[in-house]
């Protein structure tokens, strides 16, 4: 029934409800009318307390209202949905069937022809129309739901950024420029004196350097620029300098100084001599 949808371009699909404004409003109107008729019919059933022995007019009126209301609801829903070619025909045929069934009921019931097998035909006609409308709506929803999920699935796979023409052009220009600069940086120009061998310069060539202007200027911007370009730099010692300094420090902490050593030695010598003297004296 909906095979032709398989060949439709997904990119053209704009959702199940895309029908254009007028048709959408028409469908909404039909749907609204159907709802209204159904409510009215239901209200009449309750007001008239319709049963098998009620007045024929009451039964006919409430039946017409409820039946046409239900049919209009389904027609309205189908009108609001995007249909295929065959879907449209199904909708038209099913609407006609429902309408014919309701009209047949009106005519036959009014003229007292409401007997079997006419009742079967009328009910069958209405049920077929009703089922087709309901089935068409259900099928539309199902197909659009499946298509929507497959669109999401395919778009989800494609996570690449969509570039505009301008961005592509800029990227190409940037790549070309970098490539050219790389080639240019590898060039080795030979601007030798071969072109200038036959040239003789005038006397003024080495005497003056053009128009000279002398201006008092201490050009302190260079210091500011230095700090602006590299504000954090102070010293560069590296790990070798640091190791050396720490080794020197540890040495300095471990060994006494030369002067201290000398004093200690002197004290020891004095002590030794004193012990010798005292021991000698004791021996004496």
């Amino acid at each position, binding site marked *: 029934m909906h095979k032709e949808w398989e060949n439709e371009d997904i990119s053209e699909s704009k959702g199940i409800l895309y029908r254009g404004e007028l048709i959408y409003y028409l469908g909404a109107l039909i749907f609204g009318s159907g709802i209204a008729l159904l409510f009215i019919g239901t209200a009449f059933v309750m007001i008239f307390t319709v049963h098998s022995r009620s007045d024929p007019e009451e039964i006919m009126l409430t039946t017409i209202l409820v039946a046409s209301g239900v049919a209009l609801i389904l027609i309205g829903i189908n009108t609001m949905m995007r249909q295929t070619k065959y879907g449209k025909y199904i909708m038209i045929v099913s609407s006609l069937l429902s309408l014919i069934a309701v009209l047949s009921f009106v005519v036959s019931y009014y003229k007292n022809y409401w007997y079997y097998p006419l009742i079967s035909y009328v009910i069958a006609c209405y049920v077929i129309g009703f089922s087709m409308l309901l089935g068409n709506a259900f099928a539309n929803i199902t197909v659009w739901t499946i298509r929507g999920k497959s669109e999401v699935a395919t778009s989800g796979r494609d996570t690449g950024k969509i570039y505009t023409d301008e961005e592509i052009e800029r990227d190409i220009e940037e790549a070309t420029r970098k490539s050219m600069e790389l080639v240019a940086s590898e060039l080795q120009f030979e601007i030798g004196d071969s072109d200038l061998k036959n040239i003789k310069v*005038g006397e*003024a060539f080495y005497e003056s*350097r053009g128009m000279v202007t002398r201006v008092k200027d201490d*050009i302190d911007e260079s210091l500011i620029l230095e700090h602006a370009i590299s504000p954090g730099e102070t*010293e560069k010692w590296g790990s070798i300098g640091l190791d050396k300094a720490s080794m020197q420090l540890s040495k300095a902490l471990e060994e006494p100084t030369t002067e201290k050593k000398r004093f200690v030695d002197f004290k020891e010598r004095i002590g030794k001599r004193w012990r010798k003297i005292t021991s000698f004296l004791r021996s004496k």
Partner: protein
Amino acid sequence: MAKGLDIGTMNIICAEKEGDDIVFMRQRNAFMKLDSSDLTKNMLDTSKVLYIEEDGEISLLGEDAFKFATIFEKDARRPMSQGIISPKEKEAIPIMKLIVENVLGQPRSSHEVLYISTPANPIDSDMDVLYHKKTMEALAKSMKYDTHVIDEGLAVIYSELSDWNFTGLGISVGAGLTNVTLAYLATPLMSFSIARGGDWIDEQVSKSTGLPKEHVTTTKEAGSKLGKEVKFGSADGALTIYYDALMTYVIQNLNRKLAEIAPPKVAFPVAVAGGSALPEGFFEHFKKKLIETKLRVEISKIIRAKDPLNSVARGCLIAAKTQEEKKYSKINIIPKKEVPVKKHKKKWRK
């Protein structure tokens, strides 16, 4: 010891520090051919004219070429056109080498640091400046300089926007190109050029008024005034009109280019420099136009370079000195001391 070199379409300017002064050496980027004879050579030597002799032909170089061209009503030939080496001049590179050698002189120390200015790629032309950049770099390196390259617009920022921590827009209105750079804390965010400058104005004025182009250039440089009141039949009126057209064109292109980047949300000062920004009334006119055009970045202040003609060379010298300090501090591994920066009024002599 470091040098800055502004290689422009009209002028080549070298800046170097000598004691407490900066010395600017300026030479016209032009040459003119004359027939060679002993008399001519004697006359030129006596008059201290800058020239070379090759294959029986004399080529006057620099300012003298310009002067002689005006006198003899001939066209001075230009090695550069629209900011880069002229593809139409076969002798462009040898002549430029000679003029640069004359202006730059020999390095004062081994591998003296040199920063040369180069234009950025123009956005309104399919011209590419890479070949010019590399040729100039190679030319300077052949003279045994430790050569580095810097954008003209960035050089203007270094020269004029130190009080704003080198954050802002630097605009250099030259003869061949107008260079624009936007920088934040000395880092360039955007750099481009426009293929219009002083030469374009001279051409348009020459076509409109019928005056020779060199005459227009001389009139402009002699001290023309841009304003609403102009002398009937003079070039001033045409100069005002085409200067206005140039300013509008530059500002519109700047606004267009600013749309492509996402600059930091700070107010940027603008510094305007360049030889073509010298005429009286240019800065006021440009400032007014810039304020009227609401740029995509906030402008805090618009300043005119103290010396528009030498600003780019001065910026190159600043960059060279900074590079030199960095180079020697790495070699000596001396801790950098916090040098207090004293801001005092700079005295500019004309």
